[in-house]
């Protein structure tokens, strides 16, 4: 489903992605972990085309991304549903309107482009939105304004929006970092249910290792822009975790002290 080969990216001289190789099979669920600044968000954003890599290739669903062609980027993005830490909903409009936005990428031609732009959608699309809202448990909130919802509810709206795309892949960047434990568990269960029932591939950046252990079979860890762990979750022992999260500067610091 996703093939990343020799991916490199620098920001102002700083090497953020240092040659990433990664394969994710169709229907898989992968947790992406790593210390802050290790390049997780950057990797996710190269997969949906918001960051242009310096070298390397990515293909999604067998199609290689051509970063220079806006139309190719758009076709790739149509296949990918995005879930964000801060939900990224249009706050001043209703739940229904936000969910409908997920259909925009599909309605990109001719009359349906025109009508969807000004906010008219077919009955089929509207019914689909309603079904998805009841799938995420918000059937009674369709007319509510988004800024009146709780964080957990907002994230469920965002998930419904992503599903409205009929995606093949879901990318979630810290989807539960701003939620309380109860809402976090519900959101993770929902994401995994989508992965299993709808056979949608899932890559989720997570900081909370308990959630990783509870829900994922495979873990990929990034450290300083390189993959330092990619294996079954059960192999993620304390020693490994220490390894992943120990920043090298500390070691250098200790070494320097020892040198004195």
């Amino acid at each position, binding site marked *: 489903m996703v093939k990343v080969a020799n991916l490199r990216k620098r920001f102002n001289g700083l090497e953020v992605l240092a040659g990433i190789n990664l394969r994710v099979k169709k229907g898989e669920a992968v947790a992406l972990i790593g210390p802050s600044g290790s390049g997780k968000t950057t990797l996710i954003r190269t997969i949906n085309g918001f960051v242009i890599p310096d070298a390397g290739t990515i293909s999604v669903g067998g199609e290689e991304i051509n970063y220079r062609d806006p139309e190719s980027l758009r076709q790739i993005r149509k296949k990918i549903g995005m879930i964000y830490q801060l939900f990224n909903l249009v706050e001043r409009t209703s739940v229904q309107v936000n969910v409908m936005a997920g259909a*925009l990428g599909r309605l990109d031609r001719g009359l349906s482009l025109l009508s969807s732009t000004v906010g008219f959608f077919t009955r089929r699309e509207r019914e689909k939105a309603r079904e998805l809202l009841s799938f995420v448990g918000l059937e009674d909130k369709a007319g509510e304004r988004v800024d009146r919802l709780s964080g957990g509810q907002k994230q469920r709206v965002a998930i419904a929006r992503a599903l409205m795309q009929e995606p093949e892949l879901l990318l979630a960047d810290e989807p539960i970092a701003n939620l309380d434990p109860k809402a976090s568990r519900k959101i993770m269960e929902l994401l995994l249910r989508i992965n299993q029932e709808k056979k949608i591939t899932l890559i989720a950046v997570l900081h909370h290792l308990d959630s990783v252990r509870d829900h994922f079979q495979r873990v990929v860890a990034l450290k300083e822009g390189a993959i330092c762990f990619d294996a079954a979750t059960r192999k993620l022992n304390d020693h490994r975790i220490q390894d992943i999260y120990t920043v090298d500067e500390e070691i250098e610091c200790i070494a320097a002290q020892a040198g004195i």
Partner: protein
Amino acid sequence: MHCRASWHLNKAARFLWWSIFLVVLGVSFRISQVDIGSLIGGLSQSFALGREMLPPDFSRGKQILILAAETVAMGFWGTILGMIISLPLGFLAARNTAQNWFLYHLSKTLVTLLRSIPDVIYAFFFVTAFGLGPQAGVAALTLATVGLLGKFYSEAVESIDEKPVEALAATGSRGLSVIRHAIVPQVLPLFMGYNLYLLDHNIRVALALGVVGAGGLGVELFTQMRGFHYQKAAAILVVILVIITAIDRVSAYLRNRIIKGGFLQPGSRSRDAALVGAIGLFTIVSFYFMPVDLKEMAAGAPRIWEFLKGMVPPDFSRISVYLKLMLETVGMGISGTFLAMVLAVPLGVLASRNVSHHPLIYNLAKEITNFLRAMPDLVFALIFVVAVGLGPFAGVLALGLNTAGFLGKFYAEAIENVDPKPVEAVEATGARLPQRIFHSIFPQVLPLFNSYNLYILDRNIRYSTIMGLVGAGGIGYELVMTSRMFEYRQMAAMLLVILATIMILDLVSAYLRKQVV
């Protein structure tokens, strides 16, 4: 925390508001003669006039340059005199430095009243009282400046940090000494910024005042347009364009430096000093071209008194005509605002950096917006009266184009300040640009757009009263005619009708603002 706002209204109330909006708009179109046919005709007539203007004829270049200097000098004098008068008024009309209840309310009311009347009405008034020439223009600019600066100054004084004031008061200082040592240092940069803004504004207004005979380039423009010398008129328009562009750039640069506190600081000191020096030199040179004779102006004061005496008691015998014309005036303002909104949406979108990725399109839209905004509305009116003929339609076009510049700038600023997160989220669904604009940007900026629209509506209805001074419809035309026949008592009645309308509209717009924003 939610304020009472439109989304709380139920469907029925929403429907009611939309119906009122559409009916008012329809009636306004009707009385200001706007329809599809007139719009298409207007477009082709304007192009025809444009062709007749090319190429510009600079044979009167020398006179034009002298008049340009006179215009700039008018702007300087109006600003300086206005500053001198506004300084005490600003402190008297600020809550924290007011001397007593009576003076506070008197100065505040005076400033508000001065601000509510369009500058060109003052010019018209002074031309009638003083006679033709730049003296009338300077007097008009002075009054209009006090209306604006008085408000800006007093708001700046009210917004200061009170701690230094208290500290100084605790040492036993009082009155002027506190103002001098604790308040002036705080408000000085703000005041300088406002002064520059007013200078910029006044020079632009001065370009238009000549249209009613109050001196400067406008006189020449009016004469050439009315004499069908369109190529000569085009030369003047080119000079006006150069002046407003130059002034816009210089004042934006200086204001930016002053507000950021970098003015005359190391790094760009020589450039800033050179600019200030150039302005100073320019001032002296332009004063040479228009030695404002304060003595002569003072001598004109008794004439104003005579003139005012001739206005009482106001003669309301033709009130029904005035009311009908006033209705046409308001209709022009509403139609003009709608035209401005329609034009400003594409302009604003294209002139925002976060939407318009192509630098060429972005810069073009920005330049068009700046041009429309900087060009005085009376100059537009003069052109459109020639292009599409006398009547309210010319006024609608003038107001619409001029304020499309204002709205375009406001819209673009609002769009550049949207929260980018939902915009990226919608882009991540694979949506195309127009879909992104409608689904992630417009919902965020709509409330801001509404409040800008109301502000512009307010302004346009005020300024639609002056469109008639050049024959572009509304009550202004009747005002000119009555003054030509020395019917000062009828003029007084008309001015009162205008003032009353403006006051009523202030109330209406304050109410609407509460509903929408």
